[in-house]
Structure formats: structure tokens, C-alpha cells
């Protein structure tokens, strides 16, 4: 597997730190908008995910792609995680991964 460009765990507040970089996050699908999708991050931020059209509503998907702005991601890969997901724990993970334990991930 290609490990050359690691994707960083982000949530709403940390996305802005990685604009232009490859990120991954889990969002809940709120609305499908043509070729794009509106999703809610694990800390209630609303994002636009480009390139993702067919995700089932209200389910959680993990999106890996390049962060375009602090509110949108251009998706390259996405995976459906289903309807049940522990958003709280994931959020904690993002916070830890970008804060205290950054060294472990990057």
C-alpha cells in the first residue's frame, strides 16, 4: 500500500490547519447536492464534500481526500461506515491526533 502521502485525521476545527493537504475524516451525510455532498463533521461543522454523490443519507462515511478550504474536501476515496457510529470518540481521536499525540501520527 502506498504510504507516501499519509492522510491526517481531521475534524471540523482542525481542517483549517491542513488546507491543501491530504486529510481523512468521518462525516454524516446530510444532503446530496448534484455532484457534491453536504456532510456534518463529528464536531458539528458543516462541510462540502466534492466528488461524492451517491452516499446514503444520514449514514456515516469516511472521506479521504485533499482539503480545499476549511469547509470543503475534495474526495478521492470514501467508505460507508453505516448508520451507527460513535462520533464522540472519533472526535476525541481527532483532537488527540492533532494535539498531544501528533508525533504518533505524522
Amino acid at each position, binding site marked *: 500500500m502506498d504510504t507516501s502521502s499519509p492522510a491526517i485525521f481531521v475534524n471540523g476545527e482542525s481542517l483549517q490547519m491542513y488546507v491543501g493537504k491530504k486529510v*481523512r475524516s468521518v462525516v454524516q451525510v446530510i444532503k446530496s447536492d448534484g455532484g457534491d455532498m453536504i456532510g456534518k463533521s463529528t464536531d458539528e461543522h458543516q462541510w462540502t464534500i466534492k466528488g461524492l454523490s451517491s452516499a446514503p443519507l444520514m449514514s456515516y462515511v469516511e472521506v479521504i481526500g485533499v482539503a480545499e478550504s476549511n469547509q470543503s474536501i475534495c474526495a478521492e*476515496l470514501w*467508505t460507508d461506515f453505516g448508520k451507527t*457510529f*460513535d462520533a464522540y*470518540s472519533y472526535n476525541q*481521536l481527532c483532537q488527540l491526533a492533532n494535539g498531544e499525540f501528533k508525533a504518533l501520527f505524522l
Partner: protein
Amino acid sequence: MAKMNLTEGAIAKITSGGAKAAELKPTLQVTELKQVHTKQPQQSDRFRLVLSDGSHLQQAMLGTQINHLVKDGNLRPCSVVQLIQYTCTTVQGRMIIIILELIVIVEECALIGHLVSAQKSLGPPQSFTNQPVNNSSNPQSFGSCSLSGGAVENPNLTVASLPNPRMNQLHSSSHSSNNDSVRHGATNVPPSHLKAEYGAGLPGAAPMNGSYSDQCAIFRNHRPEISQAPGTYFYSSRSVYQQPSPMYPNTGQVAKNDAPPKLMPISALNPYQGRWTIKARVTAKGELRHYNNPRGDGKVFSFDLLDSDGGEIKVTCFNAVADQFYHQIEGGKVYLISRGNLKPAQKNFNHLRNDLEVFLESTSIVQPCFEDDNVIPRQQFNFRSISEVEGMDNNNVVDIIGMVSSITPAASIMRKNGTETQKRILQLKDMSGRSVEFALWGSFCNAEGQRLQNMCDSGGFPFLAVKSGRVSDFNGKAVGTISTSQLFIDPDFPEARRLKEWFEKEGRNVPSLSISREMSSVGRADVPKTISQIKDERLGTSEKPDWVTVNATVIFIKADNFCYTACPLMSGDRPCNKKVTNNGDGKWSCEKCDQSMDECDYRYILQFQIQDHTSITWVTAFQESGEEIMGISAKDLNSLKYEKQDNESFSKIVRQVLFSKFVFKLKVKEETFSDEQRVKSTVVRAGKVNYSSQSKFLLDMMEKFKSGNSAPVASNTESTYPNSGANSIGIESSGRPCGPLGSNQVGNNGYIARKFGSLPSEVGQHGNQYSTKFPTSSLSLTAVVLLAIPQQIALVS
């Protein structure tokens, strides 16, 4: 109610033959209505009634075509009706009106007029249907607005004992005094009933019963104008407990009420009492339970009653009767119960202080009592102090009250029969200077338990009153809840208030002596431990086995001898399960049962290694947990390997299990093998990991760890997960491909894993640095935690 006018003199007219149905359609009041039991079951019910025209009474029978009026409840005692079609005939020397058609004008009405039986020529007393006089005869009378005016004519002719001279005069005067005489002039004439009708609902009825009759009677009886048949009126009082019969509340359905309910205190009930009625409040309503015993299936429902004298008794009904009464009975309400059977109490189900129990049948009567006068307390306790509990025998049922000084969170406990239940333990302190461990089981954990926990957590000191807790001698003396227990938090009883005062003044600071020994972790298997802790803490080495929970991954399974041939015969209520040996002739023989059989069971005896981030160990899993882990029965697996020789499928199954994670509940015990002591762990239960809760647990731990980080390193390592295992092992294990994940995810996680793979080397190189800067435990811990979280979250269910 509007005053209804009855057709005066109608009765006389009808009975004298002066009027016929065609001409006279009188308006009459039904003073009594009762069902006559016919000998032949094929015949439909007949209803006999007594009609009144305001001054005279007359017996009547209802034509079967209008039975439905009674059954639907339209026609009731005290209804006012207009006769449309009827005839008058003589039956057995008596005039009876047969009613073929009538209109119910008013379903319920106060009794009108002063009544006298129109029939002077009385035959034997039995003719009066309201007389439950002599037990000898009568089908039960409804006797409701038991006017009994005329009825009382021959109360007890048979009981000739006491011509109570006062009687007559009393009758003509106030009825209340009647009651008095009735009661006190008591002759003990066993068989007869109290002519309670008289007393019914009379105001100012004698002190003892006054309250009862007042309350229960809505209808006031008009004073019957007694024909002065000399010396014929007497009441035989049976015993001191005779009470005037309360008038049945108007709302009564046409129930088979036996006229005179002699209200008596529960404490006076005895099996030799013929007819009795108690008025009591339901202090505890049980569930409608289904049971299955060697005699068959059934349903049972029971409830506890408390009366105003403080007497308590348990009432039980089975099957159809249970259905009948289950919905009628409401906790906290007052009922009149009569015609139940009294039997000795079964002490193992009944914890009330009464040697008797009531069993209701379909003929029993349960009547709600609407005038709830709060004379009857809601609940009655017999509190014992905790120091008394110390001296009590095991399995005693007591009521206790105390201050909750501590409470544990709910833990899952495995019961002897294999089921799981919740348990909380709290410490109760009271004025005796003692404290006891009190266990909440099952649903009490969630409801009251949670409430108490919240109160304790927020710094409060809740008081708890317990009714029917059972004393056990587990770890000294302890008390626990049973299915019939009731808990009251911060109750408002005098004892509670006293306790509170004591607590405010001194109790808060006085240390109390516990009569329960401190619980070791026996049974508290829920605290997750790491595998290294098993070794470090020398679990299992004490005389009792230790139960621990670990989250670990299956690393290696010993594929040979994963099962054994077991004896399928039942020994007692469990299969024998001892190893059987092959006879050589296709049969298997069991040593213990001393029998041989053709077919044997195959049971798992799976030995495998499990590993977590700290250490690795061998464990053994038997049948149930083996199946849980392997996902296939031992028999099938065995046939797959040996009979079908299908090694490929076998390996595939085994491979699938490898590296899967479980929550293992282990029983750890040190055993002696030849000369050496070895600590063996047995898997009692293997469950799937709940990633969400585990994540939260780990996050919590990280929090705690972080907050404790400022303290010296050494102390940190003492917190829940002290690390003694090598880091490399911990992290290596995380580098596995995650079997159960979907294909997409495998890629991602594999990626992360490999990322981590580089870490051990880093750690290795900078090992020294790290060990000085950070406690290595924290690094490996957080590494694993952070690795675990994304994977876990992905698999969250």
C-alpha cells in the same frame, strides 16, 4: 338522585290478583337481586329479585329472556323498573311474580320508602333470599341494598338461644344501637350470619364498625318498619367481629355478594372462620407470573394487604382467578375481600408476619372501597437496627432503614444458573453504629440504584428504607433485595426523621463498624485488567479463584485435541460431561456413570493463547465459550477434521478465529500439577468487543493518566494498566490485518498499522531518551490506544 315515585300499593294489588299485566304497569324498585343456581347446568341462570313499591316487598323471578339486563349491568339492586309483562303465580306456597318484560328506568337509586315484606306467611326462613342466615341453605344472595326490611323477619329462627329482649325495641328505634346489641349481645352461634343488613350503612353505627360501615356504605338504609313478629328478630352474633354489613356501593356490579361481610381485622382471621371480609389496602402488588413445575404450567398473582390495625396478609390467586383479579387490583388502593380460602402461609414465598395466607377463588369477592379514609396506612414497616441484623439467621427477611454512605456502580454478575444480572452494593449506616452491605439486584440497580448513585455523587446523603430485604451470610452479614422488596428513598417516616436527626448531630462523623466483610473482587469481574496484571498481582493464588475481564486477541490456537469425547448422560440436572473412553467396539463407556453408549458428545477443550498490549498467556475454553469463539460446534469441527479429513476447511476456520479480539471473562486459579504450582486461566465467557464503550473507557483512562501525570512516574504506573510487557510486543500485535473489516477498510487500517510498525524501532533507538522523558508505559499505552481507536470506531456497532 331524583326522587322516583313508585307505584304505591302495586304489590298488594298484584299479589291479591287484583291487577294484571295488561292493566297495571307499576314502577317498582328492585331491592334485591340474586342469582339462583340451578341444579342442571344446562338451564340458564335464573335471577330472583325482591321488588318494592315503597311500602311492601315482593319476591319475583326474572324471565330468562331478560336475564341479559342483569348480566349487562343495567338491572341492579336498587334499580327502579317498570314492569311491562308479568304474571303472578304461586310456587311452593309462595306468591312469586314472574317478570317477562320490564324497563329499567333508573339503574341506581336510593331506597325509597319503608318496606315490609308483603308476605306474612313466611315459610321457613330459607325462603328469604337475603338471608344468608343459615349456611344450610341459600344460594348466595346479592343482598345489596339489602333492605332486608322484611327480610330480617326470620333471621335465625334456628338459633333460638338468646332471645335478646333488647332486640325488638332496638329494631324499632335507631339502628345504630342495633349494632351495639348485635355485637355485644353476642351469642356464639356458630353457623349463622350476622344480619348485617340491618346495620348496613347506618349513620352512627357503633364505634367499632362505624368507620367501616360509613365508608363502605353509600346507601343508607331506610329504617325498615319491622313488623313486630315477637321475638323473631335476632341477630346471632358470631363473635366479637361482627360488623354491620356495609351497604354495597352503588357501583357494584351484580356481584355475587354474600350479604353480610363482617369486616374483621386481618389479625383475627383464622381458618375456622366461615365467612369473613377484610378491608385493607394493597401495599404491594406482584406481577402476573407464569410458572412451570412438575405439575404443569400456571399463572400466579399475589398481593399484600395491610389493614387499619396493622395486620398484614398475603393474597394469592392462580390461573384463571389470577387473570380475573390482576387487573382489578391496584397498588395503594383499599379493597374489601371476602370469600377467600385461608391456608397456612408458605414462608419461603411469604415474608409477612402472618401465619396465614389468603387464596382467592373464582367465587371470591374483591370490591374496591372508594371512601379511602386514610385510616389504613400505606405501608407498614418493622424496622430493625443494623446491629440486630448481625444476629439474624441467614435468609431472614427484614425491614431496615439507614443512611447510604457509599454505592458502587452497577456491575454484571453471573448467577449460578448461568444468567447474568446487575448488582450494586451500598453501605447502610444507622444509629446502632453499625453498617451493613446492602445489595441491589436486577431492576433495583437501574431504577433506585441509579437515583441513589446520583444523589451520592452530588454529595448528598440519601436515606433508604427497605421493606423485605433478605439477610445473607455472605462476607459476614449482608442484606440484599429480593423480588418482593420495596425501596423507599428519603422516606418520610418517623424512623427516617429520627435517623436524619441522629445523622446530623453525630452520625456523620461517627465511624461505623461494618458487619459485612470487605468484598474482595470475587464476583466483580467487570474491572478490565491486563494480562500482565494476572501475573503481577498474583491472581488466583489465594484460596479462591479470581475472576477477571481482559480484552485480548487470540494469537494461537492449539489445533490438536481441541475437543474430547464426553458422556452425554444426565447426572442430576446437568449432563455428566466426563470423558468417555472408546471400548473398541464402537461404543463409549463412562466411568462415572458406569454405562456405555453408542453416541458420545463432543465438547470443546480449546487451548489457545491470548495477547493484549501487555502480555500473552495460555487459556482454556470449554464447550460454551469454545463455541462462541470458534463459531462452530465441537461436533461439527471434529467431524470436519477427522471424519471428512477436510483439512482445508478446518484451517480456514481456525485462521478466521486467529487474531480476532474478544472480551474474555477468565477464572484464574492456581493449581498443582505433580509438584508444581501453575496458574491456569479458564475462559468462562467470550464476548464480542463493544468498541464504542471500550473507546470511551480508554479515553477516560487517558484523562486520568494525564491528570496524574504531574505526579512522579512511579505512581503513574500503578494506575490501572501498569506496563510490564515489552513495548514491541504490544505494538507488533497491532500490526495485524484486521480480518473482520471490509475490504476498503482493511487497506486503511493496514496502512495505519504499518505506520506504527516503524515506531518500535524508533522507540528502540531512542529508548533511553523516552524512558527518561516519558514513562514508557504511557507511550505504549497511548500508542496502542490511539491505534485502537480508529479501528474500533470503524467497527463500532
